[in-house]
């Protein structure tokens, strides 16, 4: 798709995470937002709507989240970068079409502003309870990419990154933010358009009658065309071959579904982005993502000043999970401390990847406020004294 710098609002602004997300989308060239209003994700759509006219973007408020994502998928095939924004309950309704997006290998971005669940939960309280859902929520086997921003600036950057990844790997990408970051107001610096990397759509060039919608390149990613260009292509949610025609047998299932997993798993190293601080000499490493890493980094400094060698591993990409890195670090450190605003999700992944080489402490975070470090500190202290590796996750209150 053509570069369209109209959306870039150059300069330094004082924005909430939600607004920054909308700006990020517009800067990334997103020109269609399809959504259903839900707390606490409203400001994203509000910002997008207020800027839509001048940027030349379209939006539609659908009747529910199911159709919101369906419309995004349809729109994406016209060549418009498209996204939807929601919160827990909406994400649950989107699960079927997340699967369709994976199967049609449709680039699109889903922004999830997590609030406390399950059910109606608490729409105005932050949480990180949808992390596993982002990975496993739809039926069938697939891999997905999920990013976790921890500040308005990152909301801006990661939204752009999300669009780039989804175009690069042709997979729906989830931006897993939370109510705290979404409503946090901070300075956001928006660089000029020419400093923003935009991943172009992988278009097919070649004779129209030769186009195969699911013929894969070397890196297992097929190429796209737009609706209305005369390619007369067919795509289906059924198990299909290169032509996009359904074939219902074991071989085709393998041929179709295995690459969906492989096209991500084979390139985990290219996709994952982690931010490390003081890991070289650390005996305890705090693994965190999203809002919790704000407290995690503070806790690290405090612990260091009180003489405990603590490092931090901040996950920018949560899915695919940085298995290798965690496994390496596990051999070097005594323990990991994993603060999360849920009852233990990513910590299970950490336990899996540490292969019994390090203790894994779970910190139930957020009770005393998102920026509060008490629980993390006490966990870190406990972890530093623990010299033998225990079985399973050690929960500390």
């Amino acid at each position: 798709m053509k570069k369209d710098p109209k959306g870039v609002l150059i300069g330094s602004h004082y924005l909430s995470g939600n607004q920054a997300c909308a700006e990020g989308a517009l800067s990334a060239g997103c020109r269609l937002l399809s959504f259903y209003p839900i707390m606490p994700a409203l400001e994203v759509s509000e910002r997008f709507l207020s800027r839509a006219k001048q940027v030349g973007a379209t939006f539609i408020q659908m009747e529910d989240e199911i159709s919101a994502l369906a419309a995004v998928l349809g729109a994406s095939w016209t060549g418009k970068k498209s996204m939807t924004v929601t919160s827990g309950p909406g994400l649950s309704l989107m699960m079927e079409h997340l699967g369709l997006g994976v199967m049609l290998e449709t680039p699109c971005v889903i922004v999830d502003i997590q609030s406390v669940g399950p059910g109606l939960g608490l729409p105005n309280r932050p949480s990180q309870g949808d992390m596993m859902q982002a990975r496993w929520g739809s039926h069938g086997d697939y891999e997905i990419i999920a990013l976790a921003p921890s500040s308005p600036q990152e909301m801006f950057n990661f939204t752009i990154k999300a669009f780039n990844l989804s175009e690069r790997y042709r997979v729906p990408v989830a931006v897993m933010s939370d109510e705290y970051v979404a409503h946090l107001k901070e300075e956001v610096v928006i660089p000029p358009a020419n400093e923003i990397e935009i991943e172009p759509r992988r278009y097919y060039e070649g004779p129209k009658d030769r186009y195969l919608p699911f013929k894969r390149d070397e890196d297992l990613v097929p190429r796209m065309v737009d609706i209305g260009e005369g390619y007369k292509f067919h795509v289906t949610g059924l198990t299909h071959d290169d032509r996009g025609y359904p074939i219902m047998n074991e071989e085709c299932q393998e041929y179709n579904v295995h690459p969906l997993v492989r096209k991500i798993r084979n390139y985990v190293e290219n996709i994952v982005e982690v931010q490390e601080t003081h890991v070289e000499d650390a005996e305890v490493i705090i693994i965190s993502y999203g809002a919790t890493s704000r407290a995690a980094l503070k806790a690290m400094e405090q612990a260091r000043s009180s003489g405990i060698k603590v490092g931090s591993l901040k996950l920018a990409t949560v899915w695919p999970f940085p298995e290798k890195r965690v496994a390496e670090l596990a051999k070097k450190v005594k323990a990991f401390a994993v603060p999360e605003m849920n009852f233990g999700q990513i910590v299970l992944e950490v336990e899996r990847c540490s292969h019994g080489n390090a203790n894994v402490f779970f910190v139930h975070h957020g009770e005393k406020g998102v920026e509060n470090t008490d629980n993390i500190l006490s966990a870190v202290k406990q972890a530093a004294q623990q010299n033998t590796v225990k079985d399973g996750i050690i929960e500390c209150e």
Partner: protein
Amino acid sequence: MSLIITAFAQGIEKSGIKPAEVCVPSDIPFEPDVVKQLGIDYFHTIRGRAIVFGTGLKLANLALKVVPVVGDLMTLGGNHFVHASRRNMELLVICVNNFIYKKIGGKSIPSTSPVFSLYSTFEEPFNIPHLGNSCGAIYTARWTALHTDEIAISIAEALNKRGLSVIEILAPGPDYYTGINNINSDLVKFYHENSEIKNNEDPRNVGITPEENIVVGKFTDKERPTFIDVYNAQLSKVIGDKFTPYGPVQTSRSGAGLGTGQNESGGKNG
């Protein structure tokens, strides 16, 4: 207490039905004390599913009077409304149509009329009585929140009808967190002053447009066999005497009675 709740209470009283038998699944939050005062059972369901939740309640125990009070009627729940009307489920659907949807920051919902919406919306509103009527609802009415007496009467009437009734109440802007009790009084006055009562008007003429007055009143009041009527008739026709009609159970408090009309099948020792 808010106008609607008052009217609701009066309606139940007029209808002569025990409040204890009234179940209200709703996607609008009620204050606990309101529920206590009404003496009903209240379920705060997920958005848009109040009607189907109610369908489950009703079919599992036909003795219940199920009254879904819905804000999201035509958005997520639109399809459920259509099909419940078609089946003629014994439900009284009260649609609190709050035009500007404060709950979600003033965005347009399907029943939002362009003039009233904060954001200019490119969408015309649903004509709820017409849609309900066309799908087979047996009782449709529309009032503004200030027509408390009329609402009460409508509720009393509808509660004693057998089938799906829908009462649309124009009550601008209940706020999500303070729930159903907080109504934008100026706007509702405005509606009230610009409304005219036309009972038995053909529902297809009662669409809400910026130009004309809001038509309120009782539009449909007909009889149709309910889902259960047809079910029992059909099955006894086909199966014959061996078929025991699917009937109501006494709402016994201690008798566990897991099962409909089949108390012996349930855990007495529950």
